């Protein structure tokens, strides 16, 4: 075995004076960092800085530090760039990583600020006054058609209602993450929380495990290029169907769940053999053009008794035109995933260099659909690094109906963003199928944490609405007048449809 040039990223330090020698760290670490020989001996090169051992060490004697090896200064050849070359010359492999784009691209959300009422109109106290967050996801009519009800009043004309919409108590839903990439307990946690919160979770491309059937009214089932876990029965159970075209973390490429993550239960849910790779092709092979998308949308509607069908795409250069085509193809919602969105596994080069920010995507799509008079025909879900209720509020003000949270969901369950989901060894029991690790998440505990998170964000959204002097989220939706930019260039402001602060 050749000597690797890539030195460990972290140093694991144990204060042996405090150490109980209990071996808890050995047992907690999914990466196999620790040997035990009378006391724990760390192997730095395996550490991912996930802090599982640090969190559960009863003596609090572990610290993780950066391995601060000096490299000869070179602003062009960063240490990471050098390490990547060494790694690839050792392996010949495509660099594989996980979670969202960590590069220091400009954060547009952080350069937008919200408005508040002062004097000329009143702000509202959200704790004691009504403050409505309910949102209907799906296609709406352009106008409401009514007919006389025969008793002197009126009733809805046939097909004029919201029957094919999904009612969301708050405009925050859980983003698609497949069973296989995450554990069943993560799915259970999301399903229970979604049901309690009156929102939805999304299966991702991996099917719906039978344990989730009781929560099926709150579950969106994804139809992706590998068509995993799809049967007419599952279509029947789903609250809505979502055609996944792309993902913000890896626009334009397929997926690949390695065989070692496919145990008996995952295999049953995906309906593929155990231990065999589950490969999702880059495109749907029945969609090579926009008219084919229409064909699949209507195939799903025909096969499911006309359930809502959404389409998820990665935010890319021509997202506005693409979204317009998607709406015209009959989609009930469009899911826009920005380039900071997470993933269970993606080539680093794709994750870090393809796609555009979701802020831009929301703005141009919402505007295009309005320009074409088809904004009512589909809802917009925005995702791809919604980090807080503030991001959610700004996304909604830019034009989104709903935001979806994936990385934040996993953070709530213990994720520390160590970007190692693809290894299948997650010490927090999230992105693994090893039973000794997955049992670390008790679904009841997980559901409670997720419920807490969404409740907290909902309260904060209500605070924001109150400050804005409106008591219903639809008064914020698309209201770019309530946003101002600080430090964004003129061109970006124009694309966003947002004025600079002071104007």
């Amino acid at each position: 075995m050749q000597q690797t040039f890539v030195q460990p990223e972290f140093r694991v330090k144990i204060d042996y004076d405090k150490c109980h020698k209990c071996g808890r760290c050995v047992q907690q670490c999914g990466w196999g960092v620790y040997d035990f020989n009378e006391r724990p001996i760390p192997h730095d090169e395996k550490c991912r800085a996930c802090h599982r051992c640090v969190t559960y060490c009863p003596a609090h004697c572990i610290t993780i530090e950066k391995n601060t090896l000096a490299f000869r200064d070179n602003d062009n050849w960063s240490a990471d760039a050098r390490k990547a070359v060494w790694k690839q010359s050792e392996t010949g492999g495509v660099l594989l990583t996980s979670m969202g784009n960590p590069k220091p691209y400009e954060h547009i959300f952080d350069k937008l600020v919200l408005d508040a009422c002062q004097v000329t109109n009143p702000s509202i106290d959200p704790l004691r006054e009504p403050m409505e967050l309910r949102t209907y996801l799906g296609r709406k009519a352009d106008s409401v058609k009514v007919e006389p009800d025969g008793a002197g009043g009126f009733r809805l004309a046939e097909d004029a209602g919201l029957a094919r919409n999904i009612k969301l108590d708050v405009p925050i839903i859980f983003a698609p993450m497949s069973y296989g990439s995450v554990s069943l307990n993560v799915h259970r946690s999301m399903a229970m929380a979604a049901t309690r919160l009156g929102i939805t979770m999304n299966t991702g491309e991996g099917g719906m495990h039978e344990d989730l059937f009781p929560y099926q009214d709150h579950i969106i089932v994804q139809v992706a290029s590998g068509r995993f876990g799809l049967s007419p029965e599952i279509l029947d159970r789903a609250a809505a169907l979502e055609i996944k075209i792309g993902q913000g973390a890896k626009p334009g490429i397929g997926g690949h769940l390695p065989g070692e993550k496919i145990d008996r239960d995952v295999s049953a849910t995906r309906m593929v053999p155990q231990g065999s790779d589950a490969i999702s092709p880059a495109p749907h092979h029945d969609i090579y053009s926009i008219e084919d998308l229409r064909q699949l949308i209507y195939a799903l509607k025909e096969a499911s008794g006309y359930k809502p069908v959404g389409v998820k795409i990665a935010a890319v250069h021509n997202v506005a035109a693409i979204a317009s085509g998607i709406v015209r193809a009959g989609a009930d919602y469009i899911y826009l995933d920005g380039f900071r969105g997470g993933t269970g596994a993606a080539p680093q080069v794709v994750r870090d260099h393809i796609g555009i920010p979701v802020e831009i995507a929301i703005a141009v799509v919402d505007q295009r659909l309005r320009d074409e008079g088809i904004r009512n025909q589909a809802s917009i879900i925005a995702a791809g690094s919604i980090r807080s209720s503030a991001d959610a509020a700004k996304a909604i003000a830019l034009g989104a109906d709903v935001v979806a949270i994936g990385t934040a969901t996993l953070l709530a369950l213990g994720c520390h963003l160590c970007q190692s989901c693809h290894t299948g060894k997650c010490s927090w029991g999230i992105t693994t199928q090893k039973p000794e690790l997955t049992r670390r998440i008790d679904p009841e505990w997980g559901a409670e944490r997720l419920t807490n998170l969404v409740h907290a964000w909902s309260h904060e959204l209500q605070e924001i609405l109150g400050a804005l002097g409106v008591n219903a989220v639809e008064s914020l939706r698309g209201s770019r007048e309530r946003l101002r930019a600080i430090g964004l260039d003129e061109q970006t402001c124009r694309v966003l449809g947002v004025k600079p602060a002071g104007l």
Partner: protein
Amino acid sequence: MIKAATTVPPAGVIEGYRHVAPLIDRDGATATVDTTGVYFQQLNETVRGLIGEGVTTVRIEGVNGQRYIGAGLRTPGVRIEVLGCAGNDTAMFMDGPEIEVFGNAQDGVGNTMSSGRVVVHGDAGDVLGYGMRGGRVYIEGDVGYRVGIHMKAYEKNVPVLVCGGKARDFFGEYMAGGMLVLLGMNARDEAQPIAGGFLGAGMHGGVIYVRGAVEPWQCGAEVGIAEATDDDMAELRPVIEDYAQALGLDAAEILSAPFTRIAPMSHRPYAKLYASM
């Protein structure tokens, strides 16, 4: 000024399909539906309605390109006969029924199908059996590009797709399970090779049988090519017999030539492609 080519102008815009209910001729558990010029939504609604009322055989006449026939149907024991050219995504997501097409079928037959049987007395188009997870699809004639792409098996659900004629590129691409058979008989073009290129590219499960030989250049890098053994033939024979019976062909003649077996060399074809960061 310009002479009229036709003397009688049409009454209105020529419609490809009309949004009207098809004519139904019901005889006990059998119904004949004339769908000439009827849009797929009305046709399929009618078919679902008839099956809901207990009809077990639906004969659809005048089919010309209507999409999604049998899509999502989950009633076993139901038989649908299609007279004419079956449209795109016929039998998509189907789980149980049998569809017999007397004519050609367009693209996407058996897309993500779960179980049941589709028999086509003619050719079929591209992306036939995409993501198929169970049931059987039998095509008498030629098939297009990307046939059997990403077929997959799970436990007792083992999809089987038999093509009587020749196929184009990407036959069995990404195949993850089930059985694909290519006979190269009754083909329109004698000179064309039995399959195009990229046969079994990315294949990581299941098996492909080809009557006669294929050249290594035709196959993806992930597969091994071998002459079918006696054990293989024991697996293949009942499939061919069923196929021949369904289409009124001679099984013995089909089986009279040697078969080539194409199977993946690994269930994990890309295990070494990546370097973990």
